[in-house]
């Protein structure tokens, strides 16, 4: 993965830049020591590393504005960073960039249960947003797997999803307003505690723009009352076509589960060895969860069980209590960790129309043999968001490159069947050079034109999202 050559002029002015940043931030909020900047050299896409010029940890919107104004004046690239959990390299620095971390900004600004919103600083972690309201029975719905660590800032940048978005939507559907600092230091308020935009939907544009349009410092988020209860059912099938059909049949029956998760045999084997959740050994396993009161759950699960039973399951198991529910989820929740025990892995994130599931899984299996790399599939089946985990050995020369090549082929397949490169992780650097597969030049031009408006000098996270050669003239300007 190529990154642009650092700007020599910026590198040579490091002392001046750091000095000016120290002028607007407390001394301990500017990290310029080479050993210490290593803490910011990568995010969760650990295959790529590069220490930044320096890192800053502002404590509020004013400080972010002051930092960006300086960087704007001095022509210094800025890479915003939430908690650094991006799997797409969204927070990967360049050597000439200032990492702007929001970690210190983690406060709750306002909670209003009557109006069902919470306003937080964006360094706050996803799970602690729910933590702030759960005593009143409320929760924040988007639940990416990294929710214990990931920051709201990163969730907004990547428009993060999670296991429960079939019912509750992704970040953009739960974001009501932001305070954002533009690259030139201008502070803008978009949206608020009300619904929908008065003019153009700039909020919708900001969400998912991967930190390229501005730095979001505060966010107003929709909160909901927790359901009375939730319970999963587990079903196993001897082929993925049948499992795919079951998913379709459940959706068509008018039941809208909160989650439909899918795991294939390699994944089941890995998680069983790791977590011992008691899963059946089969080709395709589904976990379907519904919500409501006990009676409502019984009624919906009964419908789902009937559909499932009609397709000759090798296993059909309903959780009778919280303990059994926990066991059903245990394997799914430890799937990534389990795969990580076997080897290094790359986690893909393409989305496909649900109807293409069997075909795509079959092709992935075939390609796995062609490339000689094992793949486990675990994903959100209800919305077609796949997560193939390709196993490779980072210490074996050439294996990472082979894995990336394989990954690219899978993503191209996702686009071919009418899907997309990324459903919830973002493009970052990982899928940057595949954007031409999904988009025609004029489609990318329209997107880049938007960055021109928000960040004319292309200083914010500029080496991401767009293929380097496509964005070359703008970044060099």
């Amino acid at each position, binding site marked *: 993965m190529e990154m642009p050559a650092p700007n020599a002029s910026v590198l040579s002015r490091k002392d001046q830049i750091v000095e000016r940043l120290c002028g607007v931030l407390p001394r301990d909020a500017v990290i310029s020591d080479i050993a210490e900047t290593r803490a910011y050299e990568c995010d969760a896409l650990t295959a790529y590393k590069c220490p930044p010029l320096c890192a800053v940890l502002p404590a509020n919107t004013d400080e972010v504005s002051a930092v960006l104004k300086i960087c704007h004046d001095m022509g210094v690239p800025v890479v915003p960073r939430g908690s650094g959990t991006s799997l797409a390299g969204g927070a990967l620095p360049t050597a000439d960039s200032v990492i702007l971390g929001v970690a210190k900004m983690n406060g709750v600004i306002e909670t209003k249960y009557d109006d069902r919103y919470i306003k937080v600083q964006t360094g706050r972690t996803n799970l602690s947003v729910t933590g702030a309201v759960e005593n009143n029975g409320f929760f924040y719905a988007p639940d990416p797997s990294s929710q214990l660590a990931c920051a709201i800032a990163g969730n907004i940048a990547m428009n993060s999803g999670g296991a429960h978005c079939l019912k509750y939507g992704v970040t953009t559907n739960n974001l009501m307003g932001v305070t954002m600092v533009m690259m030139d230091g201008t502070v803008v308020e978009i949206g608020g505690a009300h619904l929908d935009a*008065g003019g153009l*939907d*700039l909020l919708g544009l900001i969400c998912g723009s991967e930190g390229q349009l501005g730095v979001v410092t505060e966010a107003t988020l929709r909160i909901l009352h927790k359901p009375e209860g939730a319970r999963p059912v587990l079903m196993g099938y001897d082929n993925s076509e049948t499992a795919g059909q079951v998913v379709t049949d459940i*959706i068509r029956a*008018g039941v809208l589960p909160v989650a439909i998760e899918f795991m294939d045999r390699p994944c089941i084997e890995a998680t069983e060895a790791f977590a011992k959740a008691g899963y059946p050994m089969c080709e395709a396993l589904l976990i379907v969860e519904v919500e409501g009161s006990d009676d*409502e759950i019984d009624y919906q699960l009964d419908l789902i069980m009937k559909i499932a039973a009609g397709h000759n399951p090798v296993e059909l198991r309903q959780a009778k209590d919280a303990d059994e529910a926990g066991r059903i989820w245990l394997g799914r929740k430890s799937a990534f960790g389990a795969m990580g025990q076997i080897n290094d892995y790359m986690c893909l994130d393409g989305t496909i129309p649900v109807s293409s599931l069997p075909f795509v899984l079959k092709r992935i299996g075939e390609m796995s043999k062609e490339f000689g790399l094992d793949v486990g599939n675990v994903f959100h089946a209800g919305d*077609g968001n796949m997560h193939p985990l390709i196993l490779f050995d980072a210490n074996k020369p050439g294996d990472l490159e082979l894995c990336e090549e394989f990954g690219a082929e899978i993503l191209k397949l996702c686009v071919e069947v009418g*899907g997309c490169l990324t459903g919830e992780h973002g493009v970052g650097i990982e899928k940057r050079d595949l954007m031409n597969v999904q988009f025609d030049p004029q489609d990318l031009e*329209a*997107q880049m034109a938007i960055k021109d408006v928000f960040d004319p000098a292309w200083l914010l996270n500029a080496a991401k999202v767009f293929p380097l050669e496509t964005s070359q003239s703008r970044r060099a300007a």
Partner: protein
Amino acid sequence: MTPQSEAELAEIIAGANGPLHITGGGTRPIGHTNGAALSTSKMSGITLYEPGALTIVAKAGTPVAMIEAELAKENQRLAFEPMDHRSLLGTKGDPTIGGVVATNTSGPRRIAVGACRDFALGVRFVDGAGTIIRNGGRVMKNVTGYDLVKLLCGSYGTLGVLTEVSLKVLPNVETTGCVLLYGLDDATAIRALSAALGSPFEITGAAHLPNGMDGEPVTMIRIEGFEKSVTYRAGKLRDLMKPFGEVTLQIGETDDGYGTEKGWTWVRDVTCFVDQPGDVWRISTKPSAAAALAAQLGATAVQYDWGGGLIWALMPEGTDLRARLGTIDGHATLIRGKADAPTFHPEPAPLAAITAGLRAKFDPRGILNPGLMN
């Protein structure tokens, strides 16, 4: 001009030498613009419908009625419940799906499931230079590149002319129930709606009509789903609502009243303002502020939807409602009338600059519905 294809539309726009007035079915003439009429109504038809994937793709000029009929065959629906503006605005013709998306039109269910913009998965459009652009797609989760789908949704044709949209659809429901309270004042009604919306009982409609069908105040709370579940939640809500007044329950379709589809259509289409003289304004704000805001308007009549977060106000002709609102968390749009005020809420300077910048990129010659949104 009524192009039959996207290519023809692109040619017309590229070759245009003056402003264009873009319409779908022409049933939502909100705001003022001038220019040669350009309608998408001849670009019609459902391109793809996959009930098992909950997605439908249709050309922009496809009548909403055609889409709803196709969905009904599979027992599915457009869950955001797009309002039909015809009776309120006194227009005729067929509302199109492109028009719904271009105006981000939703209905009472918006409070629960989201607006049109939350269901819009993909768009194809022609920008002001005549370039055909594609964004999003037809899958439910997609973060590939910037989300121009939402930007185009609600842009009233000013950034580009939609040619095709893909939408997420949802299953229809087995039963609808309604919890009703009569005679509440606005502030109490909104407190009741907030209590309902803050419960775990999945409210899909929360409206207060100070002048209901019979002229008396009625507060309406909708629940939908499987019959057993609706009955259960309706009972729970009845208990929850007791402190606010006497509660009436309606489960399933009845001959008349608010629990029926008729009642919610009445709310959705703001039927109580139809044929009433005056200007119609639409205010989005936070529910807890709504009753006090409405009180200071000096309105002829008001209606609350979205738990109070959406206020419809009927104002004496020519009144600048914004002057009476003052600074609010939210915005007001002039939907019908002659008030000497911008149709859309003026933006603060930094946002106005971004908006102007985006317009200059997507419509450099300023020919797409010029001036409509500013």
